């Protein structure tokens, strides 16, 4: 699938911010076997006094910007054309949890894709006795079947609620609430898998939403999305699941970043010199592109 993606982040500050520094992670990367970025651009208003681009540990695109002068709003626009083509999931040959641990021990690597980074507790997805107990109900004969079952259960047992949680909410709190948004669903699934000894990470990105039959697609109605990647052993490797929708990541899922949890891939982090509060807005458009036949 080919998409044109537009993202607009806007922050309005109560009191003029006297300079500041941010890191922005919104540019999708090309990922072999998943997606190819054909064109991408990122712009800021007001224009920052400094800007530099680099790749972080997990390979995410980072744009670092700094403002010297006071400003009372920040407007970020990203647009990209991305072609997504994920392989169909094959036959489940993934090991059970005991064998998974042996295969994990045999992975002698700290490269960014190494499963070792994704097993220990992290800030938002700590290992939690209650979540582990919940996840144990999904422990099956293979890593993949365990992930599939947990993904479906989280989708079924938790209520989507945009008001219940914030970006700071941790897995254990969302779990107690039994509600949240894609970020919370993902953190709960990650925490559960880690509790079982299965490495799991956080994927941020975009999702094409398909409008109800007969209704037009509403522009800018979408938001950024998040789902989960699971290490399913030496041969099967990383598989991606979307617990918010109870499905595997498909060609409708466009990846922006990978990390241990939300804090590794937050679209914007930053430190501002301001005394007042700030209000943020987010608008996302994911538009399938139909190329005219030549």
């Amino acid at each position, binding site marked *: 699938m080919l998409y044109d993606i537009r993202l607009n982040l806007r922050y309005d500050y109560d009191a003029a911010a006297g300079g500041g*520094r941010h890191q922005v992670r919104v540019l999708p990367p090309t990922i072999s076997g998943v997606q190819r970025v054909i064109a991408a651009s990122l712009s800021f208003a007001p224009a920052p006094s400094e800007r*530099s681009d680099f790749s*972080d540990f997990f390979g995410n695109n980072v744009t*670092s910007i700094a403002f010297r002068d006071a400003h009372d709003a920040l407007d970020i626009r990203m647009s990209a054309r991305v072609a997504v083509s994920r392989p169909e999931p094959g036959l489940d040959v993934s090991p059970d949890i005991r064998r998974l641990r042996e295969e994990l021990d045999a*992975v*002698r690597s*700290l490269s960014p894709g190494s499963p070792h980074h994704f097993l*220990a507790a992290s800030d938002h997805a700590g290992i939690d006795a209650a979540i582990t107990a919940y996840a144990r109900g999904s422990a099956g004969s293979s890593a993949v079947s365990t992930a599939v079952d947990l993904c479906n259960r989280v989708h079924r047992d938790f209520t989507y609620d945009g008001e219940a949680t914030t970006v700071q909410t941790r897995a254990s709190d969302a779990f107690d609430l039994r509600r949240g948004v894609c970020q919370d669903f993902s953190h709960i699934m990650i925490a559960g898998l880690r509790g079982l000894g299965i490495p799991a990470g956080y994927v941020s990105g975009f999702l094409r939403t398909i409008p109800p039959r007969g209704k037009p697609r509403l522009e800018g109605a979408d938001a950024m999305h998040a789902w989960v990647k699971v290490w399913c052993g030496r041969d099967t490797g990383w598989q991606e699941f979307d617990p918010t929708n109870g499905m595997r990541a498909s060609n409708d899922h466009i990846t922006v970043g990978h990390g241990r949890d939300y*804090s590794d891939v937050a679209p914007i982090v930053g430190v501002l010199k301001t005394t007042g509060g700030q209000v943020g807005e987010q608008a996302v458009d994911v538009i399938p592109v139909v190329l005219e036949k030549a």
Partner: protein
Amino acid sequence: MAKGNHRKIRGRPHNLLEHYQPIDGVVDEMVDASGNPRPVWKDFIEALEELGPEKLAQRFARADQYLRDAGVYYRVYDKAGANEREWPLAHVPLLIEEQEWAAISAGLVQRAELFEETIADIYGPNRLVEKGILPAGLIAASPEYLRPVVGTRPASGHFLHFCAFELGRGPDGRWWVLGDRTQAPSGAGFALENRVATTRALSDIYGEMHVHRLAGFFRRFRDALNGMAKVSGGRVAILTPGPLNETYYEHAYIARYLGIMLLEGEDLTVSGGRLMVRTVSGLMPVSVLWRRLDAAFADPLELRPESQIGTPGLVEAIRRGAVSAVNALGSGLMETRAMSAFLPKISRELRNEELLLPSVATWWCGRDTDRDHVLANLDHMVIGPALSTRLAFEDDDCTRLGSALVAGERAELIAQIERGGGDFVGQEAVTLSTTPVYVGGWLEPRPASLRVYLARTPEGWTVMPGGFARVGFSLDPTAIAMQRGGQAADVWVVSDRPVERETLLPQEHDSFTRTLPGSLPSRAAENLTWLGRYIERSEDTVRILRAYHVRLAEASDPDMPLLADIRDYLEPFGIDVATAIPPGLIGTLDSAVYSAGQIRDRFSPDGWLALKDLSKTIHQFATTVAPGDDATRAMTVILRKLAGFSGLLHENMYRFTGWRFLEIGRRLERGIQIARTLARLTRAAAPDGALDMMLEIGDSVMTHRRQYPVQAGRRTVIDLLVLDPLNPRSILFQLERLKAEIALLPAVGEGHMSPAAKEILQLNTAIAIKEPSDMTAKALDDLATEIGGLYNSLAKAYFG
């Protein structure tokens, strides 16, 4: 010391060893297995005995007095919150013979080299993980494994520049490494203070024995830091978490001792990829950062986002090679307790060497064989968190002695280890050797550990010949942690030949140029200005209060108009005259102490003690002093102490930019206070006696009597307190001083004069040509506001 005096130790009139009973099966540093003093201790004990108990007590009191006078403290966190506590010096040093020290040094240098190579591998090619020598899962789980700096080679070429190691001597007489400090080791400054204090007490003995000096170590490290900075053309700075840190005293002390700028995270900013310090002369590059804060807090953008003490962008500057951190961010990984389990193999792999000084035997329960060994030998083990970076004996919250577990705990711990072995390490339970402390006239043995410091120089690692020993108050070997009330002893490395004497003073052949102090950080300038303002504000308030209480004591009517007027005048400033020592006044002085506390590296110990004494006095007065006569006397005492503090600063502070801001703060505040008080007490409707009182507040009664052959009238009072350029209390005098000092501040922006310089010039000229009759109450109030406005211009130009 009486040389050649061969009296026997036993049977002396005061035998210090009479009650000395080492524990069975434990090595004692002072006496051998048969109870005889080891050679290096023999002369030392004789010399102590010669002094006798009275003199010894006096001598040790002298050491304690030194530490109090120097204001040496560390911060303890307990249930009551954070408290400053005096440094607990154990007066008897631990003596170590030179040859033994050479062996310790060699072992630690080898260890430091090994650590350097290990960190470089973990953050670089990762061969140790690839070969299965280090488990990837252990590194990946450690909070000290900092992914944002993976792949970054330090600009200096090295990760480690300053390390400390905690050693203990086991029952077999060998030294073992109990813990490694590679993050931001503390205590080197305390070691130096320990030495100074101990030699205050035992200067003659110290002089006679050939004890290695410490100063050379610090000089070599300072030169190394300066050398690193020279290459990249920036400055060296020490980065502290701030005055609330437990060892802030030491950060300020080292900064002062070595002449290095002491900064907090907010002093720094990153601009154009370089790390800069905000100074009153603008942004200045910093290229070497000796950090005393944990790496995770160094940059809220890429490390812990909740950190309030970091510098956004620091990690980026480090990745670009614009600054060297001492030690490199991520070096704290080597402190991880489980790491000790892998060191012997790493040493063989990387250096083809056995460890000269091994760690306490350690097993990481994430490996099945290790876990089985730990479970089978639980009674001889200390069990703790694998990823902890705390020293085992300091970590009693989570570290358990296997043999001390009761049945239920034991079963629970075993279950935990079987469930998640990777979270635990087992370490052989060690018994520390004992060293003598002086208790009630006798020496008694106490368990001790030894902390040793290493610094990197262009010639390689240099070892501080000494360090400090942590000594227990009881025989419990876990009770040596400072946070739990252990004590610290100096460590003397004793040679049988005279030792080289080194000082920090330049040698004769060194070239000599006088250099002005480096740029003043903006935050320090701001704190100095406020210190000046708060001190002056306290003084002005105290003068008014004294004038008030003198009259109150004599007045038949406490509501007489003048007293009521003063009461109403002070009330909006938060000063309630009904209380002899108003909380508002105490608050002002507390603020002065706070401002001074932010910049302790810029203070002499004398200045700091004078201020603390002032603060103690006023807090005491608050509970004892009554209004009237009593308060008058109290105010006089406070005024005298304020004058003492001001005098210390005025006479002793180097007259450069720092002093200038302090002076500007004072003059600003005095100008404002005099103008305001004058506006009140010289207004047309002012009550009887107001002019005399004004002269008293302005400390100008005698001058007035001499200058003017008439009774105090409005005109003469204004003339003396506003327009007389020779009266140090007049407003014009303050403006002249402000004009002179502001003109000497560093230039800002373009143009010949800064806005503040223009403002003060205009103000000064405007007042200089005034006549007393021009200075109405309104004109005086406006003047106070204008002087206050000067502060804003200065703040904008220099403190931003």
